[in-house]
């Protein structure tokens, strides 16, 4: 009898990749496949029970007591709704129990976010409070700070905000101008400056504020960013009028100005001068939940639209019988599936003991799900046609709310750069080492590389050990796994050639970097769905055949996209249109206008 014990899936891709590809850059890919992604992370039975108990009341609250249309119309969340959220403990999901929070894991946080995301305003309010607002105290604060602030934040008595963005500094966070100067008695810092687009800015009682401080390093005075816990009660804080926004209208976003706000020295988070790192850590760790949020939203949209599609009749057929409508539903299901897979894989990785750095994975989840979510909501609206465009249905609100996703918590452009460059850095180090070796005259290495190139060019199949007898992927996903392997290996050589071609100046080749990031994101997504679907088949989850179908479809699609991008990457800029694109943009921007003459114009 065939006895596959579940533990036999315990294989790490990290372990497998370098074994088969000892020196190549596809090591970079294994940076993506970092930590163990096979098997798909699981939670214990008691945690499943916990989720069941938690999810039911939250779901009930959101379906019965939250009037999203009203929140959107009046641009404010009613107090009783906020009180309901506080009563459910949703203001302290991840704060440890000793400080009065629920003390839940990243995985359960992601699960709860699926429901919370049904109302964009509430989701943003809660995220600004706990995913970034109080995260600083949680990850870098000392015991006294935690004891003082966290209990009230967990209960929702105090609301937190995260103050980093300034009029002159958005994505470039290192350039903030707000300044904190030590008072003469040395007991206080005085903060001066202004911050904009602060979520919860109008109602926050506790703020994590980033400001420049003078730090003496080796006798030289330097400006460095520090993080402070600022209470509104300290005085000197003025908040502006709430911004009138396109979406997430119920969330409070406003400008804050600080005028000689005295902050006691014990309210510095971490070390003085260590603020930038804290800011990045907070932002990096807050992103992973966007995948599950978007997935939750899309699942809701599928429910809403499928009913319409099944009942609405045109040309004597219901909408659901038309191929183009069916395509939209398939796309929504695919996107939700992939986002879910990525989000919970990442959450599972973050829940591993220790403090695993999953910022790269989280960034990939964020980019994929924010863009996928945007496409899905607009397609869902399209299914309803004119009806969807009216305020009678929630679709237009979803579309507006969703538009913020690619913008906040790090714009997708910045995150793409981050994804690529973090990976490249790693690949670059290995490559430099290799070049040095070759310069030293290590002929064996050179010959090895040449012969390997020859072999792959002659069509030797790539095998990273995902499939086969001891493979980690289920046989029904074998083709997809092979596609991933092919992509990984081609990606390795592509990145290698890119680094040879551009060297350090690759940092400025943004169009190249964008493609590299897209390939990486899609490879991570493929890994996530393969891992998840394999697990589902192996343990016999309900409808796992549907999961296999989704996984295979997505992998097939992603494989072709990846190949297309990589072929483009291997070409030089005149061939892959990059040069033209830059030229067009340059001419347009030089004139600050669309410069073609009007087609109706005459010259004679």
């Amino acid at each position, binding site marked *: 009898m065939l*006895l596959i014990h579940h533990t036999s899936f315990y294989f790490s891709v990290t372990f497998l990749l370098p074994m088969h590809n000892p020196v190549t850059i596809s090591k970079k890919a294994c940076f993506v496949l970092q930590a163990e992604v096979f098997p798909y992370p699981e939670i214990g039975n008691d945690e499943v029970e916990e989720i069941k108990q938690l999810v039911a009341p939250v779901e009930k609250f959101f379906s019965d007591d939250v009037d999203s249309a009203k929140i959107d119309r009046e641009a404010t969340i009613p107090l009783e709704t906020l009180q309901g959220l506080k009563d459910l403990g949703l203001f302290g999901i991840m704060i440890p129990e000793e400080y009065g929070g629920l003390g839940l894991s990243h995985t359960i946080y992601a699960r709860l976010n699926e429901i919370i995301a049904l109302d964009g305003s509430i989701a943003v309010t809660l995220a600004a409070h706990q995913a970034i607002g109080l995260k600083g105290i949680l990850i870098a604060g000392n015991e006294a700070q935690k004891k003082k602030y966290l209990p009230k934040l967990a209960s929702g008595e105090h609301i937190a905000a995260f103050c980093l963005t300034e009029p002159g500094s958005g994505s470039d966070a290192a350039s903030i101008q707000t300044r904190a100067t030590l008072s003469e008695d040395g007991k206080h810092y005085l903060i001066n400056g202004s911050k904009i687009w602060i979520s919860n800015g109008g109602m926050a009682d506790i703020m994590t504020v980033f400001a420049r401080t003078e730090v003496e390093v080796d006798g030289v005075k330097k400006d460095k960013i520090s993080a402070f816990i600022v209470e509104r009660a300290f005085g000197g804080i003025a908040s502006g009028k709430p911004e009138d926004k396109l979406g997430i209208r119920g969330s409070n976003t406003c400008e804050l100005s600080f005028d000689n706000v005295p902050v006691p020295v014990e309210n510095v988070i971490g070390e003085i001068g260590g603020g930038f790192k804290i800011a990045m850590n907070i932002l990096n760790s807050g992103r992973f939940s966007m995948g599950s949020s978007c997935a939750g939203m899309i699942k809701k949209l599928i429910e809403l639209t499928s009913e319409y599609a099944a009942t609405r009749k045109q040309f004597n057929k219901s909408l659901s019988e038309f191929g183009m409508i069916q395509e939209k539903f398939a796309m929504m299901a695919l996107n939700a599936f992939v986002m879910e897979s990525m989000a919970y894989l990442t959450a599972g990785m973050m829940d591993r003991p220790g403090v695993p750095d999953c910022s790269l994975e989280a960034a990939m989840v964020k980019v994929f799900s924010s863009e996928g979510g945007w496409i899905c909501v607009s397609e869902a609206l399209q299914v309803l046609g004119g009806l969807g465009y009216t305020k009678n249905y929630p679709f237009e609100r979803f579309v507006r709310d969703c538009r913020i996703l690619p913008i906040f918590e790090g714009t997708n452009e910045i995150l793409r750069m981050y994804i690529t460059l973090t990976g490249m850095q790693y690949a670059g180090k290995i490559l430099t080492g290799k070049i040095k070796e070759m310069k030293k005259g290590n002929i064996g290495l050179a010959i090895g590389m040449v012969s390997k190139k020859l072999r792959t060019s002659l069509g030797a199949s790539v095998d990273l050990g995902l499939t086969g007898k001891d493979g980690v992927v289920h046989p029904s996903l074998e083709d997809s796994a092979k596609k991933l392997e092919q992509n990984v290996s081609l990606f390795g050589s592509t990145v290698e050639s890119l680094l040879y071609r551009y060297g350090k100046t690759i940092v400025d080749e943004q169009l190249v970097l964008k493609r590299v990031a897209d390939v990486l994101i899609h490879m991570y997504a493929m890994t996530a769905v393969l891992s998840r679907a394999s697990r589902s088949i192996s343990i016999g989850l*309900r409808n796992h055949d549907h999961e296999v179908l989704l996984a295979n479809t997505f992998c097939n699609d992603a494989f072709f996209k990846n190949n297309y991008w990589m072929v483009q990457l291997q070409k030089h800029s005149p061939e892959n249109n990059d040069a033209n694109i830059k030229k067009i943009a340059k001419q347009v921007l030089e004139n600050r206008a669309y410069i073609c003459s009007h087609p109706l114009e005459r010259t004679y």
Partner: protein
Amino acid sequence: MKGSRCLHQLKSLRLLSHAGRRLPPPAAAAAAGDNGALFRLHSSSLLGGSQCPQREVLRHFHSSPARTKSQPARFVQEEDKTRDKSLVAHDDLFEQVAKETKTKATFNKVIDVYTKRDIRRRGHVEFIYAALKKMPEFGVEKDLTVYNKLLDVFPKEVFVPQNFIQRMFNHYPRQQECGVQLLEQMESYGIMPNTETKVLLVQIFGEKTHPMRKYQRIMYWFPKFMHANPFPIPKQLPEDPVDLARFSLTRMANDWDAKVTVYQLPCTDITDSGAEVTLPHIVGIQSPSQMEALAKHNPCRPVFVEGPFPLWMRKTCVYYYVLRADPAPPEEKLDLDLDRDLGDDESFDVEDLDDGPVFAMCMTSQGDQATLNQWISGLQQSNPILGQIPTLFRLGAGPRELQGVGDTDSASGTWFSSHAHKEEADPGEDGEAVVEEEPRRSQGVKQ
């Protein structure tokens, strides 16, 4: 492993043949020459139901050498008696403790009494077999904790093989067999073992023993089949007959657009004359496409109310009635394909059988014509065409009321027997319906 087991069984059989004289020696010799499978066939067929003697001999073979030496030629008959005595003792224990109530608490008490009575746990295998047999009576046959508690009766670490020879051969086969039997009973009741079970099994028998393998097999296959049914039935069916009817009808219709209508809620009324009248519930279902089909129905052709048809939901049986018509006669069907050709498929397709359209379904606790007439008049409100179509009632003499709704799964064993018994008991009602359907159908035309 298999080989050693065969060998072992072979020896036991020989011993048996000598002792009990049930198998003539030549046959045994022939069996010995055969392969394992065939041999097993022989042994099982020859022994028939008499498994106990074989087990007894097994004990002889593998129990402590001192005992075998002291009683080398004991006869099965004698053995049977003594063993019976011991088993009866355990059965007695259950009977004694549970004279008045048979519950989980008393069952657990019996186990506690047994484990505390004798530190050596003498006769624990017999005790476990007896307990397994008694579990359904106490209603604990679906309780994982009880199984774990029962498994806990085994002494720990005694039966764990210590060296490779023990591992190679069947170490303490009777105990292992008993462990497997326990797991098998869990399997047949669909109980999934948990980590505690695994820990216990490892403590009792060690890794890679038969009970452990059984455990692994269960853990491999159970989850795979857990969601095999695409139309799952919840473990707890709704108690309320109206809810149950609603659930069953939706399940049968399998159509998102089908609408369930409750035509009448069950209630008890007292009429002016003082007589108590119980009104039955009537729950019907109809989908838009069924309404459409009914609207297009030729009013000259009658529709029929037929039933009751049984529907089993786990261990509950409910009955439903359908409103249907005969298939449209061939002349009414538009068949454009008039030519015969070589490529024609003239085979009979079971899937494509024209069975006549079903226009609506209903469930009621009282399937007489008056009640069903009420359903039809209810339907007529949304399907005005029913006023023009003659409606015929072709009702079988089924059970007049919903059966087994009150029965929960725990009482399933007894339910089966009582149900069967009931059917046997009143053949006057059911028997005739079974014999001949057509003449029993009460035919009546509405309007």
